[in-house]
């Protein structure tokens, strides 16, 4: 009986040893990185399969190390290595940040408005794997060279910022960058509502009177864009005359019927300008 137990014990130990030996046939590194070479130790020969997110690599192997090239190992995430009847799970981390997806909103915004511009950056490696490790992302918003920048550390691959528009109108360069990688967006900062709208009589031609505004600017001094509607209203004994003029080269101009006693007002949108009295006593 004791001999039988001894024999069974020896068999069990041998089985365990053989099993341990078989497990050692497939060795994968603990810190695989997408885009970097990978070395896998396979004790026996056969076919090695590496199955990852959206990608499968197949190799005919002999005993020893198998080298997987960096450009082959493109997907970060959970991988399974299978050789013969052995398998092992390993994780591939994203590579270093090399791509940014940058959403900048809106594309057009009035000047001097607080928190109206938002920028959201998604950080990816060379193979579009999202880099979820905290990464410093630098945001820079500038018009004509002057502007501000701020560094934001990404969380779960996303970094975002809210910014105010500058007081100066123009095409603002909104840049997000990580190391040497940068993405540019343009945010058009446009003049706000006209401010201190004033007009004057510029002359008379025949039976018309010509009125024109001073250069139309917003409260920050930016010229209001050409094409903006400026309404001139003349009231006299024959009734009311209106002209919806368009700003051209910064000035709106209108021809109204000549009158010996009239009041002329000017407005742009909901902003009123000055009032002129022509003739009369």
């Amino acid at each position, binding site marked *: 009986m004791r001999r039988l137990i001894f024999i069974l014990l020896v068999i069990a130990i041998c089985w365990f040893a053989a099993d341990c030996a078989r497990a050692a046939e497939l060795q994968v590194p603990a810190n695989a990185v997408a885009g970097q070479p990978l070395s896998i130790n396979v004790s026996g020969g056969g076919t090695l399969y590496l199955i990852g997110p959206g990608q499968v690599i197949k190799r005919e192997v002999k005993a020893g190390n198998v080298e997987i090239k960096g450009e082959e190992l493109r997907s970060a995430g959970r991988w399974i290595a299978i050789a013969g009847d052995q398998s092992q799970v390993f994780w591939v981390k994203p590579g270093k940040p090399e791509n940014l997806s940058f959403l900048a909103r809106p594309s057009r915004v009035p000047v001097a408005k607080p928190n109206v511009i938002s920028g959201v950056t998604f950080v990816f490696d060379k193979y579009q794997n999202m880099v979820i490790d905290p990464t410093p992302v630098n945001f820079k918003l500038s018009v004509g060279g002057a502007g501000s920048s701020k560094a934001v550390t990404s969380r779960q691959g996303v970094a975002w910022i809210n910014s105010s528009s500058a007081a100066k109108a123009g095409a603002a360069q909104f840049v997000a960058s990580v190391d040497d990688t940068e993405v540019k967006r343009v945010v058009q900062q446009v*003049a706000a509502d006209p401010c201190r709208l004033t007009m004057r009589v510029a002359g008379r031609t025949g039976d018309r009177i010509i009125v024109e505004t001073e250069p139309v600017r917003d409260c920050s001094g930016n010229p209001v864009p050409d094409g903006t509607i400026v309404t001139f209203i003349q009231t006299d004994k024959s009734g009311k005359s209106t002209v919806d003029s368009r700003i051209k080269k910064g000035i709106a101009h209108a021809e109204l019927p000549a009158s010996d006693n009239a009041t002329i007002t000017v407005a742009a949108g909901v902003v009123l300008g000055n009032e002129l009295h022509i003739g009369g006593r």
Partner: protein
Amino acid sequence: MGRILTLIFAILTLALIAAGTVHKSSTAPASTPEGAVQSLFAQAKTHDWKGAYSYVAAASNVNQEGFLRDLTGRNGSLRTYSQLDSVNTRVLHEAENEAVVRTELKYATAVGAFYDSQDLKVVKDEGAWKVVWPAEKEANVPPQVIPVNYLRWDIVWRGQGDDWGAQNVENPNCRILSMNAVERDGGLIIMGEVENEDTVPAFITVGAVLTDNSGKDVAEESSFDKISHVLLPKEISPYRIDFPGIKKSDVKSVRMTHNWMLVPASADPVIGVLHQRIEKDQTGRTVLKGELLNESGQTVNIPHVLATFYDNSGKVIWVSDAYSDHALLPQTPQPFSVALRDDLATNVHSNRVTVNNYSLNRAE
């Protein structure tokens, strides 16, 4: 017997031929002033221009071509896209040789019914009544060069090659400035004003959804053509949405709907609205009259006038519109008239007129 039958058939055949050939002339001389006007427009309705012209008195001093252009329109105006639908006449004054006939004409046009009213003078001419046609004086624009360095907005949209994060051009920011719901003639009318607050042109639509006391949507309408759809930067347009047959008491709430889109547009033409005044027309209705002046160098074929009326607190109390059946030639004033409800006339403190324009030769 056979000869008699042949003779009878020959006579019968001749009689039938004569009956088919001889008929009462449709351009028979008019025996009454009203008959002359009715006959003239009856012939015009069937496009028998020569027949219609036969009812025009020689004193009119208009040739047939000019008369035809008066009836059918010129310069691609709304009249050129219309068809005379009905004519109502009423004698205002009649003497032995002269009469005045009020003529109300209804045209079917591409934008709905168009009404015109004229007091036509009718005279007895060689025993028959004929119409003294009020020939339109054709405006002749003198040869000239009108510099139009107009502005234009073009748009480059996001392309297929752009990465997914690249932003598209933003739609314009517009705002409904006011909304006023009133009950008129058994229907609910919602009106107000909308402004393009942006620096780019906008194509706008404004609508409304009515909700009843149980919270259910009962009606949905848009302002259709009672609005200027293309608004340039800082431009304000009135809007009016009609819900015929719906009472204000049946409506719990109104939900305004809108859509602002960025569109390519031209800042041309500038149309001045001159000498606006509220007065009574020849039929006694209250109207806003004035003149449109096209300050650009290109003909505006179909002008559409939108008038906003405010009370003394600045609230929009009525929005009215009218198409003109005459084209706006460059630098040539053209009268317009927009109806105003008589019951509101005393409440109107001020008004504002905007003009939509449709031009055949403009590529926008």
